């Protein structure tokens, strides 16, 4: 399980980094989204993978799922969602202002 999710995060990050380095705004936006997926999963993982345990300490439960990363990841999701929305609008604005979707505003032939 741990190995599977680690590999998943690795692939997402690699894809995100690759897409971020592309020269058009659409792949860059996708890349940033993938990066934020990767980082959200990573943050979630940091509470360790625990299955079927309550997120609070009770007297009966012997083990518990760490609730803090869940709160952190919720914050991170909201923020990255807002950032993605902003950057999409910005990319559209850049597309209309500059007439093409190159990140430097250059026309490539």
């Amino acid at each position, binding site marked *: 399980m741990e190995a599977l999710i680690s590999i998943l995060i690795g692939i997402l990050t690699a894809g995100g980094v690759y897409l971020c380095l592309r020269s058009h705004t659409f792949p860059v936006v996708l890349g940033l989204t993938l990066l934020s997926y990767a980082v959200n999963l*990573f*943050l979630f993982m940091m509470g360790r993978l625990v299955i079927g345990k309550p997120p609070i300490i009770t007297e009966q439960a012997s083990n518990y799922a760490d609730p803090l990363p869940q709160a*952190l990841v919720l914050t991170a999701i909201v923020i990255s969602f807002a*950032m993605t929305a902003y950057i999409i609008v*910005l990319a559209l604005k850049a597309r209309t202002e500059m007439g093409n979707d190159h990140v430097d505003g250059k026309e490539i032939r």
Partner: protein
Amino acid sequence: MSHLAIIPLLLPLFTGIFLLLLREQRIYIKRTLSGISSLIQIAFAAYLLCTVSNGNILVYSLSNWPAPFGIVLMADRLAALLILTTSLLSVFALIYAMRGTDREGRQFHILFQLQLFGLNGAFLTADLFNLFVFFEVLLLASYSLMLHGGGRKRIRSGLHFVVINVVGSSLFLFAAGILYGVLGTLNMADLAVKVAHITPDNISLVKTAALLLFTVFALKAALLPLYLWLPSAYSQTSAPAAALFTIMTKVGIYSILRVYTLIFGNEAGPLANLLDDWLLPMALLTIIIGSFGLLGSKRLRQQVAYLVVISAGTLLTSFSLNSEAGIAAGLYYLPHTTFAAAALFLLADLIVKRRDQMEDKLEEGFVITRQRLLGMTFFVLAILVSSLPPLSGFIGKFMVLRAALEHPALPYIMTIILASGLLTIIAMARTGSLFFYEAHAVDKSTNTYVKQGPPEPLRVRELLPIFSLLGLCLLITAWSGPISQYGQDTAKQLLDTPTYIHAVLGKGVQ
């Protein structure tokens, strides 16, 4: 529990939210409210500084959750100094914006107040994840402020600015995730305790997280090689936004200073003084690259942006000496360089207005209106930024160099800082003579006879902020004794981590 520590956060936040309720047409009410709120913020920042100047550390637990479990705000000498600098800078940037910048787009004043909310929050928080949240708040406000008014070039450099900062934010989260996964806490004081007793098999993981964090802070501070976004972003945005943004690189510098003295400082066991090998060379290289950029700039605003890069390099050089004198010197230099660069950004805007299509290109142009007054102001500001005596820049750089006397890398530090000073003088002299001495009566582009540039009346609103920022620099010069004493006390407090940890965590035990 005193509520003083949270007021610098609540005031801009509530002002911003309240302004949102007003209609866009009511610009005069918005201006008044925003201005009054900023003035009150100065008063509270000054009061906060007086309260903590005797060495008190104000700790404010949000929702009264005890320290390692809940988020705490913390105000010490360093935080108070930076908040006062921010609020002083903001009010003058705001007055300048009332000249008309705030009408170029929507919601300027709201974004401005939210930016202050993010800045003050980043300076006050004592929790690493909360620092991330405040970084995002100030960044999101800064994205919109930067693009305020629109325009092709502004949007292009804005896109770069946003993308690189979003990537930086994901790195921040990776670093915070690793630290939480290994150490089980995100409270900075608690992190400092846990890092000191780290088990050997976790050292490399925590080191990775620490250096990832450094990358993020270096990106915000515009340290080499992560400074590339700054010159285009700062030179393309509107003047009040650029003036306010001069404090944004200082957020990165503040975070480096805070995290690497508290968590990875002298008492961090196997990870003590983690940055020693990295910070000084990178800071010096930043100064070199910044100086070359300054000489190679084609526009005045680009030059000022490179001056911001150089000042970040100088500040981090002085902090990387890892001595009390070094930190104290940097803290004296910090407000000076912020105010001087902001004033230059505002002055550059006045010059742009008067040179018509020439804007601030470093080419011979026609005689601008009110050239004597503007020229004199430029002259004094040039003295300030190139650290010539007798003003505060000279005193600041002198203190930095004196602090470096004991350091083994003294020859490099001395050579690079002095050489960059010389290059700054050359660049400023060239700019000044191009704009004010070699101005011709003939407009070369159309070959027509032009005696003066377009008549543009000089308003009090435009001059007041510039002269006030200049006046602040003169005050820093005049009060260099008390201010450098305050810097020394701050440095002593920063290096005394046990007191800090006790102040934050001791209260949580009660």
